[in-house]
């Protein structure tokens, strides 16, 4: 029998880690949902954002959480430029063009880091310690990271729901032609969407860098988790992604506790493929809908009937 305090510890760790996973997945979900582009290079952007925060700390002595104010806007611009140069020319091309182009970006970014920075892990020591949360000892950075994830989710929600550009983004995601008939330039919307998606990586990077150490290939470890989270949470669904992130975080923590950390990756890849199987056999709704919201729908319709 698992003791209650161990269980609460696993859940707390899982939720905190999962919030950060969700932060990584949010941009991916936004880009996939609005543009129907799978950004395989998402992890590579994350890696660059982690290094950016590391160097901001090392050179400027900037606290990693403060460096978000610098890194996120810079990555917005970085995203806009990437969209113009690479995504825009192939937006109407078949799937494989997007897959290859973003895979090409991975090689460029990873080897750029490899050549100019090297492979030794870089960690930020910003002087954060431990604290006690609900009686469980945790690292401060994880708690702050989680808070930032929540704030970012809220900010994204408000941006999408309450602003004009948010309306244009959501309208374009629903029907690109109709949005153009309303005067919403899909070129601009795609530029902003990709910029925002990469800006979200610019938020996630410093948070990740404050918790984990950075290497040129660190992104690959998290991009697949992010895909699992997106498939579970839904495309362009900010809170769905948040919930899914926490769920994966708990699974991650539980597997690591009861078995071994190396096994958690195979476990969520299995979840990922299981979700795909469910979808293939028609047990999941529309392709934009996440598994969680689907379950919620089924649950609520069962209640009402």
């Amino acid at each position, binding site marked *: 029998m698992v003791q209650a305090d161990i269980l609460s510890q696993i859940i707390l760790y899982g939720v905190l880690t999962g919030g950060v996973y969700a932060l990584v997945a949010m941009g991916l979900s936004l880009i996939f949902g609005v543009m129907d582009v*799978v950004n395989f290079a998402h992890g590579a952007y994350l890696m660059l954002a982690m290094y950016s925060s590391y160097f901001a700390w090392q050179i400027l002595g900037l606290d990693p959480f403060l460096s978000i104010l610098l890194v996120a806007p810079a990555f917005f611009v970085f995203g806009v430029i990437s969209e113009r140069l*690479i995504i825009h*020319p*192939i937006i109407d*091309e*078949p*799937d*494989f*063009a997007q*897959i*290859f*182009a973003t*895979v*090409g*970006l*991975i*090689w*460029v*970014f*990873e*080897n*750029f880091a*490899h*050549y100019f920075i090297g492979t030794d892990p870089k960690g930020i020591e910003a002087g954060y310690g431990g604290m006690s949360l609900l009686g469980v000892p945790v690292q401060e950075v994880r708690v702050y990271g989680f808070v930032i994830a929540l704030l970012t989710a809220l900010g994204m929600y408000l941006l999408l729901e309450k602003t004009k550009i948010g309306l244009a983004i959501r309208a374009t995601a629903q029907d690109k032609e109709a949005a153009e008939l309303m005067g919403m330039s899909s070129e601009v919307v795609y530029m902003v969407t990709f910029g925002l998606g990469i800006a979200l990586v610019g938020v996630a990077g410093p948070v990740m860098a404050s918790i984990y150490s950075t290497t040129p290939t660190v992104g*690959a470890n998290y991009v*697949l988790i992010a*895909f*699992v989270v997106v498939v579970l949470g839904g495309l362009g669904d900010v809170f769905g992604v948040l919930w899914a992130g926490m769920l994966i975080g708990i699974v991650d923590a539980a597997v690591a506790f009861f078995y*071994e950390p*190396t*096994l958690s*990756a*195979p476990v969520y*890849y*299995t979840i*990922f*493929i299981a979700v*795909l*199987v469910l*979808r*293939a*056999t028609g047990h999941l709704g529309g*392709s934009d809908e996440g598994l969680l919201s689907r379950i919620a729908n089924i649950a609520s319709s069962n209640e009402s009937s």
Partner: protein
Amino acid sequence: MSQKQQTSTDSIAGKITKAVGKPSGYLSLLVFLVALALPLFATNYILHILILVFITGIGAIAWNIIGGYGGQFALGNAVFYGFGAYSVALLVNNYGQSFFVALAVGIILSVLLAVLVGYPTFTLSGHYFALATIAVVEGMLYLVLFFGDFTGGAIGQSVTPASWLADLVGNRVIAFYIFFAIFGLCILISTWVRYSKLGYYLLAIREDQDAAAALGVNTTRYKIYGFALSAAMTALAGGMYAVYGTYVSPSGAFSLDLSIQYALITLIGGMGTIIGPIVGTLFMVPIQQYVTTVLGGNLGSLAYIGYGVILIVVIIYAPEGLVTRLSFVREWIDNTLPEVK
């Protein structure tokens, strides 16, 4: 009308004579003969590079069947390479099985895995198949690490094949001919597939699944056939490499980079063409070998930045690959040099 029919119903032998008669045909034959004679004057190092070309080429040809003919973006084909390599390593080393049994097991396991992955994902859009194949290769990498007692863990393990086999592949000249023959066999299989029912069906599926289904093509089944064949050939490459390289490691075998390489090589050469993966391999592998072994370390990563840029530029400006772009070379040769009867 009768003339039209004649050209398309010519016997295969007639076609071959005709193809060889053309300048590009007899020049290719010449290249083939030179290749056969290579061990007479090439150094062991050049033979080694060529053997690597053959091994990688088999993987690229295999990828072209599902990715090029079928248009299904497998990005985890290294998992089959890994199955082939590890089956040979583990069964030969730990269980004293013969190489051929071990290789067969690797191939069978790969086919089973291909069916298992393909069946649920082939009904979804292309993105999901690509993602699922990545998940499989990454997940398998972790499993190999997790079961380290059995697999040798991160360090991998060396392979000690039976002495007769070790002697054969230890001799570079003999190894060259063996791998050349298998490479040739794979080219023949790929050519045969292209003009078989499977090939036509895969091409039809790539172009438009609904239209293919309306013509009586069971699209899921033929995609699985294509994927399974691709898996089997890739496992063959992995198993062969295990005895040639006498060493297998998880990062070398279950590698996302290797999976992407297969696709990149085929893209550079021309996706969906018979010759694309062959030309792509001949072009890319020697360059890569030069870059990683001669330039090494840091300069190597500089070269990979170059690859990434090439990949992006090719995708944006020449998505049909280099072979199609270079077809004017063949036309020029055919037009300038005389034909032979």
